[in-house]
């Protein structure tokens, strides 16, 4: 008799149970990427909350499993391994730096677990060295060949810059790639790269030696294919060395927290980014962010990309009618996903097709939306 009661309660329990599917989040919560990483995890949390509250995936509840890879690719591999083997995630969102995703790509593709990079822009994230698309690697952002072209065209055509210098990070896939694509395109347009100097990101904090040499070459603009803190320190030190009228332009490594470090030195600098802060579609998300986290959504690009990446996975799971990575992947390759900041359709290299670049101009203490830009040949 007790056995039948036990059996009945078990069966009853099963009938009410929903599948819990785990999505891992690879974020740099400490180290140089901390500002972006924390913003992304928060954005993802908002998405997961909404998915579960509104039951966006029938019969499925999502659980977010965030891991800190300490802004180092080696630790990203360790974190991803844990996510796959211990937590048994079906998909991983993040990271926001190409080096981490390039390092983890062999792992996720071998295990058949989806990984969507947020702001990872280096081509090798979704395509290997032989040119083959990695089956389980995707990304939310445009790629660096495109971004390098955007910067080159903007500087040359819009701002009339014929002589540019580059200060890049030798230890970063992203920085090296962006520098290469920018330089190729800039030279093609007829521009001249008058100085090209490197530093070791994560280690070097003083760029005065390099900036002194750059100033000597007298460029009209300095292109900075770097991330966050390095950008802020470089611009600050350059202004201190007297480079008042030089134009500084960089890619999507810009973050609002840079103002804390560089202050008024940032005025008049240009940056490329993925999301327009003034986009009316995104405002409800920001309002929710302020409410839940009692903080301003400063790294708004990362927040939106993270949120949209998780939502994309949810939509794909719903369309596939399954929580198996292989089926989700197929749905991702075929589908069109209407998200907050854009509608995404992946091409054969698992990159989003036809995304606009957003140009930010730093003015009056913040990065302001300046315009959308698409390079025309």
């Amino acid at each position, binding site marked *: 008799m007790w056995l039948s009661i036990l059996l009945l309660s078990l069966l009853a329990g099963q009938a009410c149970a929903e599948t819990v599917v785990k999505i891992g989040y690879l974020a740099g*919560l*400490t*180290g*140089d990427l*901390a*500002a972006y990483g*924390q913003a992304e995890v928060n954005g993802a949390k908002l998405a997961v909350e909404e998915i579960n509250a509104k039951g966006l995936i029938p019969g499925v509840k999502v659980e977010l499993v965030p891991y800190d890879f*300490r802004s180092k690719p080696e630790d990203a591999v360790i974190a991803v391994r844990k996510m796959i083997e211990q937590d048994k995630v079906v998909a991983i969102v993040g990271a926001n730096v190409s080096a981490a995703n390039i390092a983890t790509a062999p792992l996720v593709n071998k295990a058949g677990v989806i990984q969507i990079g947020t702001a990872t822009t280096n081509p090798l994230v979704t395509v290997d060295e032989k040119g083959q698309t990695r089956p389980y690697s995707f990304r939310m952002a445009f790629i660096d060949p495109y971004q390098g072209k955007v910067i080159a065209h903007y500087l040359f055509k819009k701002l009339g810059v014929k002589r540019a210098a580059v200060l890049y990070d*030798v230890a970063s896939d992203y920085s090296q790639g962006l520098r290469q694509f920018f330089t190729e395109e800039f030279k093609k347009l007829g521009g001249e790269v008058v100085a090209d*100097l*490197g*530093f*070791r990101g994560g*280690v*070097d*904090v*003083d760029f*005065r*030696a*390099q900036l*002194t*040499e750059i*100033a*000597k070459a007298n460029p009209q603009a300095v292109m900075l294919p770097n991330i966050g*803190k390095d950008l802020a*320190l470089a611009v*600050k030190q350059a*202004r*201190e*060395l*007297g480079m008042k009228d030089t134009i500084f332009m960089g890619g999507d490594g810009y973050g609002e927290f840079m103002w*804390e*470090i560089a*202050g008024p030195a940032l005025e008049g600098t240009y940056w490329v980014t993925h999301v327009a802060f003034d986009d009316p579609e995104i405002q409800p998300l920001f309002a929710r962010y302020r409410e839940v986290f009692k903080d301003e959504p400063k790294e708004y690009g990362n927040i939106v990309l993270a949120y949209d990446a998780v939502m994309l996975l949810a939509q794909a799971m719903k369309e596939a009618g399954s929580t198996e990575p292989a089926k989700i992947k197929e749905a991702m390759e075929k589908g069109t996903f209407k998200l907050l900041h854009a509608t995404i359709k992946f091409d054969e290299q698992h990159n989003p097709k036809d995304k606009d670049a957003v140009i930010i101009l730093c003015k009056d203490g913040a990065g302001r939306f300046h315009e959308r830009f698409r390079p025309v040949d």
Partner: protein
Amino acid sequence: MSSLLQQLLNGLSLGSAYALIAVGYSLVYSILLFSNFAHGGFLVIGGYICYYSLTKMGLGLLPAALLSLAGAGMSAVLTERIAYRPIRRRGALTLYLLIASMGMSIVIENFWVIAVGGRFRAIPPVIPTSPISVFGTTVSSFDLIVLAVALSLLLGLELFLRRTRWGLAIRASSYDVRTAALMGVDTDRLVAIVFFVAGALASVSGIFLAVRYTLYPQLGFITIKAFVAAVVGGLGSLPGAVLGSYLLGVLEMLVAGFISSQVRDIVVFLLLVVTLLVRPQGLLGRRLEEKV
């Protein structure tokens, strides 16, 4: 030509930051004959105290700085009391002190990671950084201030060592601690004073570095360069530490500017290796048998 002058000035500014660290380091070495790897921790503590004094307590720069010096000095004394004194008491090998210092450096760094998070913080711009024209090149007023403060503090230290009784005791102990103890020097007190001074000096450097490069728990890593500077100048010799620091600062800037930034670290550590092979006592140091 002006870029050479610029790099030299950059190097002197960097060297000043190193000098403040290297001197404290060398001071501890001269008495206890071990390299205190936790020295970087005092730097970070000074930086954080300054940050919180400026932001949360709304103090001015001078009171915040004095608080940092006192705080870092006290934490240095505390570190010595907790980690090193028990080992010294037992008369164990200086190697054990070194290992204990490595442990303390990890403890201090991670204390800050857990307490305040790994995110870096920007110290409010209380030290002016506006460019000034000097001999035809531009230098940041910050660099001049660092140079001035560092030189005055080093001068102060020199006066302390030459003109005061405790300074005499320290100099005596740097020759032989045991004999100095036999002469009536209270060794424990002496060590506490030395650590306090070392911690305070490191914290000044910490404040400058934090203002310039942002504040984060791993800021102490720069002590490795100061360590190289101290060895090159002569471990145990204070003028040596200062000389080594400025030499290193200038060398780094020249190499990074005229050759490349990647080669810079190679050159720095090559200098260390060459020094240890060719002239292990450094430029101004004395020959000692055991170097830990």
